[in-house]
Each structure stands twice: as C-alpha cells, then as structure tokens.
C-alpha cells in the first residue's frame, strides 16, 4: 500500500518560503495570485492494508514525526497513487 503524506504550514503561521515563491510567481506574470504556501510531501510504502488501526498509527506518526503540530498541518492520501 502506498501513502502520500502532505505537510503544510498552518494557515496562521508565517511561511517565509511561501511569500518568496509567491513574489517570484507574480514577477513571472501570475498577477491573479492571492496566496502561496510551501510544504512537503512524504511518500510511504507499507506491507499492510488499510485499516482503522493503521490509520490511527499513521496519524500518531504524522503528529510525532512527519509534522510539527505547533507550526504545521498534515493530511494524507492512501492508495490509488
């Protein structure tokens, strides 16, 4: 089973990288731009199938390691990659 975990800066947390990338996009002509956030994607492959227990474990791992809940949000897609 393949999982994609998306980690993004929280909406109310300053994202200096997003601001800089946004400026560059505007200078390349994207005048309609109203927001840019830069995050990261972590791809996992696990040798087990989806289950509520697995999702509970995955959520815990996302909170403990893959994201920092003080500054970041996460969500994930399971399978179908």
């Amino acid at each position, binding site marked *: 089973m393949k999982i994609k975990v998306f980690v993004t800066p929280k909406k109310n947390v300053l994202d*200096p990288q997003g601001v800089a990338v946004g400026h560059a996009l505007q200078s390349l002509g994207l005048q309609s731009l109203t927001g840019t956030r830069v995050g990261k994607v972590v791809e996992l492959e696990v040798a087990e199938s989806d289950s509520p227990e697995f999702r509970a474990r995955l959520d815990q791992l996302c909170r403990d390691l893959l994201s*920092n809940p*003080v500054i970041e949000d996460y969500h994930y897609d399971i399978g179908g990659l």
Partner: protein
Amino acid sequence: MNIAVLQFPGSNCDQDAFHLFASGLGLPTRYVWHKDPALGPTDLVVVPGGFSYGDYLRCGAIARFSPVMRAVRDFAEQGGLILGICNGFQILCEAGLLPGALIRNTSLEYRCMTCDLVVEEAGPAFNPRVLGSRVRLPIGHGEGNFRIDEAGLTALGTHGQILLRYVDNPNGAMGGIAGIRNEEGNVFGMMPHPDRAFERFHPSTDGLAVARAVLSVRFPELSRKSA
C-alpha cells in the same frame, strides 16, 4: 559539578560548548554520544548547535528520537538543568521540552552576525541584575524565527520565561525572542551562541556570564563567585 555535552551526527558546536564549560568556566565536562541510553551523573546537559541529521524533515525533528533523548527527558522531569544552543534549542522545542517552534528566517537568509540582546526578567538567576541590561552574542542560523500561538506567547511573558530578545530582530522571531526557558525554570534554549563568546578572540566574552547564569539556577554559589 559535571557537565554533559550531547553529540548527534551533524552536531558541529559540540567542541565549542565543551570548551565553554571546560576551559571557559573550568568545570568537569564530558561528551555523551546520542546512542548512549544513559547520561550518568550530570548537573547540566548541553544540547549543542549544528545540523543534527542534516536538518532533514525539520531542524531537530530526527534528533528528538535519538536514544539519549529519553534519558534527557527523564532528567528534565526530575528537574535537571538543560541548555540548548541553536540547533539544541530547535531539538528541545521539537521534543516538547520547550514551547513553540523555530521556522525559516523571514529573510530566507542564513544570518551569521553578532547581536545585541536585551536581558529579560527570567527569575533570580537570569535577569538584568545578574547579566546587565544587555549582552552581545553571535548567531549563525537559517531557522531561528521563533513561533508560538498567542496564548503561548502570553504565557511566556506572564511566567517570566523569556530570557533574551534581539535589539535588531535578525530572523523575524515573534516579539524578537532569542531565548526562552520552560515554566519550571530548568530547561533553557537560545539561538545565540554563548559557546562562541568566551575567548579573547571572540566578538565578546558575555557567553561566560550567560552560561554561569544558567548553572546558577541550581548552583547559586557560581554567581557569587563571578561577582
């Protein structure tokens, strides 16, 4: 007195921190490797600066899970003194031993310079009467932009947990915060480097007083000796 300086893969200020305490303050100091599950008899744990685990994922995120960190957590819960400098501060925040987080500098630049810092009222050991109203310490970091939610920021102020603030904010940190302590008053973290400010060829020697102030939380006789 026994100082333990942690070493992670990618630590690069471990020797600076060692010499601050060993040569600068003349105290028995030793290294503890990150795979060591025990600290041994220790009066202060120093989490040094650097780029532990290459700053992969987030600064300090992986170091937090090193075996030694379990011992550090136990040590903190028993009231043991801990000082995190730069990457060490980032590790302590990631580990939840200090509140908040450190994100990319607003400028996106790595900032390497000497900073004037305002000394805040952070308890009987760390305040302007002990350290003077300002100290001057070097910084060198790309992720020193301190972030915390509004309630957390208010709590830091209410409990006297802010140690140092930048006079000219180099990284965008909320409230110009350069260093904090936990509410209990035994875990300290700061982006500026006292370990780069104690030799005659350093930009200042204020690192000695800052290190002594942290130690004097448990060992008040040290501050008297320095007076």
